[in-house]
């Protein structure tokens, strides 16, 4: 066997992992902190891609500025959605799943009506379309950019959740809403903020994926299942999702090296189901209060 190409596969694995991770990041926060099963997450990603497309095509915004701008736009959409619908469904996780699926249909069709169903393309700076050579292996620069953005997002979230007052409040609400309320924490506001934050992160993912693949109203559907699997496998915590994405991304790459992409994906899905049979609470379970 060729060691060079195996190493190449491993490096590709890191890149795949970062894609899985950035796709799942927003969902982790929304599920982990607010307990909402957001089926519209894929469409948030799609919205992120279209936001970037719109800003770039109509306003000529440079790509690197499109990324944070997409964050803001999709976060705003998330905010509206949370106030208008989700806030009435907390503590009914199955209903959040169903309602957000309805939202995903509306978003998908809405975008199709506005932008049409033909594919759009996001242009990244020419620099990003080159390759970085590491002697035996080479990676596309854009994949490195994704990795960096993902790492930045993870770091940012970690700082926000573990080093700021907001983070303490979020974790307090997660553990016990009533208790947190008695300390003067406005849990409704916390939920709103986390939901918007999660949506915004999906927007970031979207503007990255828009360069990686074509921009279509239906593009979200392909990300939502795998994003959910990362969250469930990780147990709903940030660390869990990071580890789950890392491992599955690497496995995906290795399996694909020996077979093909589609079959590798099949194997991953089956392995995750088997894994959850033995650890239904995921990698890093959060303590759940029961009666």
């Amino acid at each position: 066997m060729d060691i060079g190409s195996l190493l190449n596969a491993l490096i590709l694995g890191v890149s795949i992992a970062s894609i899985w991770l950035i796709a799942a990041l927003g969902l982790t926060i929304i599920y982990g902190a607010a307990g909402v099963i957001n089926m519209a997450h894929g469409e948030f990603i799609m919205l992120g891609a279209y936001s970037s497309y719109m800003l770039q095509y109509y306003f000529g915004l440079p790509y690197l500025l499109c990324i944070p701008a997409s964050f803001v736009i999709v976060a705003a959409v998330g905010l509206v959605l949370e106030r208008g619908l989700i806030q009435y469904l907390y503590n009914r996780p199955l209903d959040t799943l169903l309602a957000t699926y309805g939202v995903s249909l509306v978003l998908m069709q809405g975008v199709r009506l506005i932008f049409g169903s033909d594919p759009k393309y996001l242009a990244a700076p020419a620099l990003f379309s080159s390759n970085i050579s590491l002697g035996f292996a080479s990676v596309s620069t854009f994949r490195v950019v994704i990795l960096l953005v993902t790492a930045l997002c993870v770091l940012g979230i970690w700082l926000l959740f573990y080093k700021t007052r907001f983070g303490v409040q979020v974790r307090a609400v997660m553990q016990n809403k009533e208790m947190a309320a008695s300390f003067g924490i406005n849990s409704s506001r916390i939920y709103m903020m986390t939901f918007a934050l999660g949506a915004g992160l999906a927007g970031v993912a979207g503007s990255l994926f828009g360069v990686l693949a074509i921009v279509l109203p239906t593009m979200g559907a392909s990300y939502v299942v795998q994003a959910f699997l990362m969250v469930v496998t990780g147990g709903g915590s940030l660390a869990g999702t990071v580890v789950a994405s890392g491992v599955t991304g690497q496995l995906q790459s290795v399996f694909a090296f020996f077979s093909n992409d589609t079959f590798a994906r099949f194997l991953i899905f089956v392995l995750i189901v088997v894994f959850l049979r033995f650890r239904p609470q995921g990698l890093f379970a959060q303590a759940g209060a029961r009666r």
Partner: protein
Amino acid sequence: MGNLYHNKTAQWLVYAAFFIGLALIPSFVDDAFLLNQLATYGVYGMLALSISLCWGFGGILNLGQGIAFGLGAYGMAMTMQMQSQSESNPIPPFMLNNSLDALPWFWEPFSNTAAGLFLAIAVPTLFCAIFGGIMFRARVSGPFFAIMTLAMLSAFYTIILDRQPYTGGVNGITPPSALQIAGVEIDPYSSTAYLTVLGILVVATVVAKLITQSSFGLVTQAIRDDAERVRFLGYSVAGYETMIYTVSGMIAAFAGCCLVMLVQYVSPAQMDVSFSLSMVIWAAIGGRLSLLGSMCGAFLIMGAQSYLGDTFLATWLLILGGFFIIVVRFLPNGLASLLESALGLLASKPKTSAEPNGDAKPVPAE
């Protein structure tokens, strides 16, 4: 007297009237294409029924009903495909196109129609029993189970797409001629086909209805309410959940067989995530707590999609999604619960006799 909606005799009468009405349709409809289309609605009805049984009564949200449905459909398509093959020409054309020069082993049993039909039902049923057994024993439940079914569905979708030489890949399988049973061909555009599907739907409904009224059904509803409490009463919750999930999967497998019999075509689209989710939407809008309500939900939405879909092509999904959100938010038990409340109002007024019409809900007895 109580709410007529919960009266078991009234419920059975409504079911009987409903199905007699459906059985009379072929005598009024001459258009063979319309009849075929109506028969496919029967398939959707079966799927909605299976979701109602599993989710409405068992409380198990299954977003992967397409697995059982798709496996059943593929089983039927394989059986029908092999009916077109002969001694001299044993390999289906799409395999030859994929340069396969021998029939794969798992295609062999489908050369025998009886064995093929048996497998078309048995394989998905067995899958549900095993997958459900594993998941429910591990106490995976609620949204987690829903996500797992979604993952499993995606896995099946992917593998069928990937193994093109064996499954026809994205093109699927298109058996060239109609299903033959014991030398008789079932023309998909005939009233025979329509009545066959309706017959299966009736049997499935009656079985499902009896299940909900049995001791098993009561325990299942108790589990939906509070699984932990039921465990301490001595019931193996995993056993009950596996059973209802499997029965529901079996009904979906029958639905898959019927669909292929009617349209002579199967493709991975039958296992698409969005199709499985539409089944859930039908049941949710119709009223998942009512078997009949769920079926009506399927008829209503698929009917609207066929007829309004042409006029509102661009906005149909927008309308459906919006309607679904409204139902989840304001009417969690679907349209059937409107009828329940209406009949409840009648019952609360003294000296009022209500006519049993519309659909009935089999939940809380009495």
